[in-house]
């Protein structure tokens, strides 16, 4: 990523913090899956559990936010180090990708939570 050294240091910190959040989220997510698939699973069953559940919605919103912060910073690294991209190109591409994660992720949460 470009920008001042202070920004670069801050991005590094955000990536660390979002990684910690993601770590917890993934564990909870796996537990939820394992719990949910016991005794078969159908779309109707899932929606019956998720629709109107604010806890479910809040948890997955946090999950989506953390992913939308974490992934673009990591991708910026890869673009810089493996593709040799620098500057604006990296910023634009990774911001767009972050936005994509945010929109599709929140859309999915909305889809299963709001009745």
């Amino acid at each position, binding site marked *: *990523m470009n920008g*001042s*050294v*202070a920004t*670069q*240091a801050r*991005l*590094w*910190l955000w990536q*660390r913090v979002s990684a910690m959040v993601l770590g917890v989220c993934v564990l909870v997510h796996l537990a939820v899956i394992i719990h949910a698939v016991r005794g078969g699973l159908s779309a109707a069953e899932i929606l019956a559990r998720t629709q109107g559940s604010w806890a479910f919605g809040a948890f997955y919103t946090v999950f989506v936010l953390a992913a939308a912060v974490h992934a673009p910073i990591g991708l910026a690294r890869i673009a*810089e*180090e*493996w593709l040799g991209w620098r500057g604006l190109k990296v910023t634009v591409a990774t911001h767009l990708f972050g936005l994509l994660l945010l929109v599709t992720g929140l859309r999915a949460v909305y889809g299963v939570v709001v009745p």
Partner: protein
Amino acid sequence: MTSNLKVKVWRGREEGDFATYEVPRLESQTVLDVVTYIQRRVDPSLSYRYACRVGMCGSCAMTVNGVARWTCRTHVSKVAKDGRLEIAPLSNLPVVKDLVTDMSEFFDKWARALGRFKGGTSRKDDFARVKPESLERRAVDAGIECIGCGACYASCDVVSWRPEYLGPAALNRAWTLVNDVRDTQRQERLGAVAGDAGCHACHTLATCTERCPKQLAPTAGIAGLKRLLARTKLEAEA
């Protein structure tokens, strides 16, 4: 110990090729002995660098069978595969000729990381008292024995990917100075080593630590710098 070694040595600059030499295998022979034999007995036009021969000066590092090593303290018995050696200049540095690299960028980066001690007292002042068991002093001890050989720098992938990256040795040096309680440039130095050309670019893969012949752990120092920076407020345009 009477057989011969087959030694491939890089000849040329960035463009060049390996030449093969036969070198008698001797007991307790080091890789530097092998290179010296070639230069003295076979081809005097071979260029390489060394000074102390005892692991102190840091000038003899080369790539031996693909790995950066201090050649004066590397025994042939440890690295030769079926009596074969391949000796090349260090990676990540421009080649001047044969086994000699241009280390200016390597040392310029030490300067960029403010790798120089700056005290605030004069000879008229009393000695500083630093407790040997203090955390800072122990951090300095762990990193201070660097001989500037560049083995870590040549082994670091991030240096290859980001030519502006300061690299393990310069950051290790900065870490020892950041922990030197007598130094007066701590804040500036932290600004100099932050960001994507500095400690935040390190992927903590520890190749540098694995390769350092002095068994230092630049990776640990770099992690220390990151931790410290997470708690430090940098100037907006540091």
